[in-house]
């Protein structure tokens, strides 16, 4: 019943898009695993891996869009939630290595043996269980978002100030995780993973399942976001974005709206990060770099903020360009990225989806005139 409600609550375009995401998420892994290597339909493993990465980025972009596009909160620290989710998953994967590490310690990960840890720090307890790690993937980013949001929204920190606070948050996390004594592997981070749920992370079949899981997560996030945005609650949210003071005067508790979306978005980013880590095989503090969060904001801007489809398209396009350009013309990439920021904000404030809508309405108008 609930699913039917969610399904019918979405627009037709969004429904089609979710189906598209799921189709890609099923087809690409299947074509990799089932097709023989020589077949023209065979999808090489690196494409599978890239697809999985992009799907996680798309989820992150959707999370950013939910707070920025629909609630006007420009978070410059969403990569921090992504990274925290990733670290939770990384800790689970580290505990799965067991005695296969370089030092062969059954409990302590290699870096701890190297740094002379005598026993496991308390915050590493429980991460040998998948269910615990999975719960933490959602809880840790959510709680951080809850704490930050509760303080910030209640004191009516808005606009630029909020952006700067979120940036300071991710910067502080960056510095903190770089420290060796934090117990998260310092600047090397967590890596050399072996298994996830008993399956090798290197195997193509596991990669295929992870890629599919990323697509499934993205589809789920699209459905949830669609339901949130399309509901009465979502209308109020958009109103908060456009005229916060007026909503306050009308008697709405603006903080509550903002806090809910912020925490939901952080949880989504955390899950995306958790799916990202086993696919790329490493998580290190550079994920917290302020530049990463801003880049995620760019994906949203390119695709079209305030739409659900836009951030996914933006994330795929920008990351595809990044993969291609950093390989082919590495010096040009930063110029291109920088120029993209400027061009999008100056010329395409509504992104590609907005441009599409503009062209469509212009065509409609022309038709109406000619008819």
């Amino acid at each position: 019943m609930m699913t039917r409600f969610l399904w019918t609550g979405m627009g037709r375009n969004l429904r089609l898009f979710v189906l598209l995401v799921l189709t890609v998420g099923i087809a690409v892994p299947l074509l990799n695993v089932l097709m023989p290597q020589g077949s023209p339909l065979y999808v090489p493993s690196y494409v599978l891996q890239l697809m999985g990465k992009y799907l996680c980025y798309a989820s992150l972009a959707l999370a950013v869009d939910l707070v920025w596009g629909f609630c006007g909160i420009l978070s410059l620290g969403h990569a921090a939630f992504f990274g925290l989710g990733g670290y939770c998953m990384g800790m689970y994967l580290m505990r799965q290595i067991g005695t296969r590490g370089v030092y062969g310690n059954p409990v302590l990960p290699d870096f701890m043996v190297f740094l002379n840890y005598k026993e496991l720090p308390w915050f590493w307890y429980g991460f040998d269980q998948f269910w615990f790690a999975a719960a933490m993937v959602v809880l840790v980013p959510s709680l951080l978002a809850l704490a930050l949001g509760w303080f910030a929204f209640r004191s009516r920190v808005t606009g630029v100030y909020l952006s700067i606070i979120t940036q300071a948050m991710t910067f502080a996390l960056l510095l903190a995780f770089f420290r060796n004594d934090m117990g998260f592997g310092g600047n090397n981070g967590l890596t050399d993973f072996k298994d996830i749920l008993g399956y090798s992370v290197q195997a193509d079949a596991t990669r295929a399942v992870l890629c599919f899981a990323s697509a499934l997560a993205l589809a789920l996030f699209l459905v949830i976001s669609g339901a949130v945005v399309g509901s009465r609650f979502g209308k109020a949210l958009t109103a908060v974005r456009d005229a916060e003071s007026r909503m306050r005067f009308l008697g709405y508790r603006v903080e509550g709206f903002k806090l809910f979306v912020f925490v939901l978005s952080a949880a989504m980013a955390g899950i995306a990060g958790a799916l990202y880590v086993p696919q790329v095989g490493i998580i290190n503090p550079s994920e917290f770099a302020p530049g990463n969060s801003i880049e995620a904001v760019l994906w949203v801007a390119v695709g079209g903020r305030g739409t659900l489809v836009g951030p996914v398209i933006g994330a795929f396009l920008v990351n595809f360009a990044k993969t291609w350009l950093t390989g082919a013309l590495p010096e040009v990439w930063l110029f291109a990225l920088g120029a993209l920021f400027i061009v999008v904000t100056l010329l395409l404030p509504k992104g590609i989806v907005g441009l599409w809508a503009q062209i469509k309405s212009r065509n409609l108008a022309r038709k109406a005139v000619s008819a």
Partner: protein
Amino acid sequence: MSHKRFLAWLLPALVTLAVAGTAMAADLATLVGNLAAGGYSERDAAITALAASGEARAAPVLEALSAGELYVRTADKVVVIARGSGKQLSLVDAVTGKEAGSASEDALDRIKVNNRLRGTIDAAMGALTLMNPDPKVRRAAAQSLFTRRDASSLEPLDKAIAGEKDAAIKRAMTEARAAIVLGTDAPAARKIEAIDTVRARGDRDALGVLLAAAASANAEVKAAAATAAESVRQRLDAWQAAQNVWYGISLGSVLLLAAIGLAITFGTMGVINMAHGEMVMLGAYTTFVVQQTLRSVAPQLNELSVIVALPIAFLVSGAVGVVIERTIIRFLYGRALDTLLATWGLSLVLQQAVRTIFGPTNREVSSPSWMSGSFLVGQIEVTYGRLWIVVFALLVFAALLLVLRRTPLGLYMRAVTQNRPMASAMGIRTPRVDALTFGLGSGIAGLAGVALSQIDNVSPNLGQGYIIDSFMVVVFGGVGNLFGTLLGATALGIVNKFLEPYAGAVLGKILVLVFIILFIQRRPRGLFAQKGRSVE
């Protein structure tokens, strides 16, 4: 006091006195001649006698002896100092200090020394340098005696104190004597007196001496030394705190320089300029280019290259700022978050451009001589480079204040900040004011770049390191208030430096960031918030 130890102390002293007594009458030649005669124990006495004579030639002769360069010429039994390599050594008469031709090593007989004798020579040299006519040497000798605390130096020290005219050196010598006395078996009353002297000195060396004395057997001495050590430690802590304040002010001045331009663009125009750090970087690279050019065109001006670079950096960064405002920012007024993204993109482009032109590695910018070196204020070490940057930051701040309060441009800028439509209605060309304001802010960033080129690596990433800190300063101090920026920068600098010793540099910085995050929750508009209708 045990008999054995007393004797061990007394015997050399007696022997010294006896030999010194006889040697007084003898002339220098005999004294030097004695060095060559007899075995090691006689030579020991001869060294002490020569040192006690206070003759000017004693020091070089003893030095040569210690270095194994003192010889007896076999032919005429004259003592010579022989130096050089190869077969022929050039000779100097040990007594007169005059050239004495050369000789091969076969014709010479080396006066041998062992380690015990070298120790005697070192002590004797310490005593000799205490009499040196050069006050610097005497002061250094007193200082080295304080740290070495060689009991045998006590007597020459007493003699030196009696003859010393310079009050400061005399005090240093008295302190050295007190430190030595604490190491000997002197009576408790004398030791307590010595403790007072050492306490008055009050530095880290003094603390070490007092702590050693606090381990003494005598209860009275022990207590006195312990209290003295405590008081010295408290004083040292106070100095350490003062030193931290200075470091904090120094860091604060850097933050102020980086943030003050941002305060203008952010405060008066509401523009988030993420490329501000790159304006700083451009200033630093301008300094590099100016220095390189001056080096090839006018090498005599090299010392002044930093000063020459100041106006040029201001103009370069300012011009880039004006161009940015005219081509990008002006289309984005009222969309603060969009300016943030656009200027971030701009910062990437500028960084990559500089990386392409100058390469990714650090560029060497040399410091002029008047910016290197340091001096002591009490126990605080102040480097000239940092001092100049503090002075420079304050000058820039004052100049900016003057521009804002006393020039027509400042008047227009304030008018546009307070009420843009009204200013426009009064005939102020707001677009022009915007461009100039942005140029001014960027130009000041360029000035900051000149200063930072002296203390930081000039690399394409230079600006990135400061952008978040500068935002913190502006947000903490309150937007649109220059004094808030000044206070914010100083406070953050000092807090940072005070946290560093306890929490480490990184954790200290994290704590400061967390503090600011919490602070903004309490006062969302900073320390000095703008009030009134224009805020919303």
